[in-house]
């Protein structure tokens, strides 16, 4: 047993002994290592880059189509205003996606830890905000999509078909659903830990993922810039 004077330096000697012991006690399975080098599966980052390229393409198409629609219906506020709102969302998504793409291209794991972890966390935060935005649009802005989509693809007027009250009621319902989803996500996030997808959604909607990422970035900044005692 050591005494009160035991310090990290003294334990370092034990660590060195342990290190020597590891030389004989650990064996690298070279067959498995070879398998990993011969058939490297596409990395999580590789999949993300691929999906980002696809998402950027669709966001660009949405921006162009919405721009075209706005041009055609500029003088009819009932159509141009929802389309402008959707175009703003699409541009925000496009901006987020391009920033994600640029960040993924800057990630090189052989760079210093503080640099890379900051980039990875920035990417995580951008991704969380993107998913939150998608969920928000899906629930809240679908009446706008309905108005613009019906007009653009079928030349139908959603106001005539459903009436203003129906569209407003759905927008309000969307707001209520968002409030309920946030409450449920915050309250029951711990209970769905068994399911990765449900847990991811609950943490994203409830905001705990974004809070954790923000905290980690703050810790990184403190770790990086801590001044001398």
């Amino acid at each position, binding site marked *: 047993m050591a005494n009160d004077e035991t310090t990290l330096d003294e334990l370092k000697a034990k*660590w060195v002994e342990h290190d020597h012991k590891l030389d004989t006690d650990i064996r690298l399975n070279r067959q498995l290592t070879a398998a990993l080098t011969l058939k490297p599966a596409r990395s999580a980052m590789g999949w993300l880059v691929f999906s980002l390229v696809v998402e950027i393409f669709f966001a660009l198409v949405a921006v162009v189509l919405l721009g075209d629609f706005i041009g055609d219906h500029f003088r009819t506020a009932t159509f141009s205003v929802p389309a402008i709102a959707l175009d703003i969302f699409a541009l925000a998504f496009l901006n987020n996606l391009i920033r994600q793409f640029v960040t993924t291209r800057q990630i090189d794991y052989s760079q210093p830890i*503080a640099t890379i972890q900051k980039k990875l966390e920035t990417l995580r935060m951008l991704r969380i905000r993107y998913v939150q935005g998608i969920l928000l649009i899906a629930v809240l802005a679908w009446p706008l999509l309905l108005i613009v989509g019906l007009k653009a693809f079928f030349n139908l007027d959603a106001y005539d078909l459903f009436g203003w009250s129906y569209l407003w009621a759905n927008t309000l319902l969307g707001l209520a659903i968002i409030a309920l989803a946030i409450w449920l996500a915050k309250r029951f996030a711990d209970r769905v830990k068994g399911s990765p997808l449900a847990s991811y959604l609950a943490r994203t909607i409830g905001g705990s993922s974004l809070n954790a990422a923000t905290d980690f970035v703050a810790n990184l900044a403190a770790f*990086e810039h801590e001044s001398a005692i």
Partner: protein
Amino acid sequence: MSTEQQARFQTLVDEHRKIVYKICNSYCPNRGERDDLAQEIVTQLWRSFGTFDGRNRFSTWMYRVALNVAISFYRRESSRAKRTFSADEHLLETADITSGEPEELLLLYGFIEGLDPLNKALVLLYLDGYGYREIADVLGITETNVATKLSRLKSTMKQHFSTSGAI
């Protein structure tokens, strides 16, 4: 990459396999996940191997890549990557290493386990004999900062061990 490079990579990783073991042990309390982390580390080392230009020691480069992977693994909330080999196969085959180790070493592992991922990296590099300059290079902070943090960690450790009554 060529077969020659693959062979060189395997030899280098084999020579420094202890780094993978120590990082996995320190970042994964769950034994079942250690193999997943070991796999992710080796895969990423291979992917990044082209960036190793020999200016630094291989072990320093390996520590950078492996610690970056381990911290990301530790931070990840979603499901782990799928293993490319079965649960019976292990990338690092070990004897029951902890059984004959002195109590101080187990306490040290316990102390490291309780640290945040960034300070874990700092302590591992220090214990492995890296100088302040190399630690600063790997972590991306200043040497003064390394010295400050180590001094603080040493006193935290002393306090931790004396209050727990273990020492």
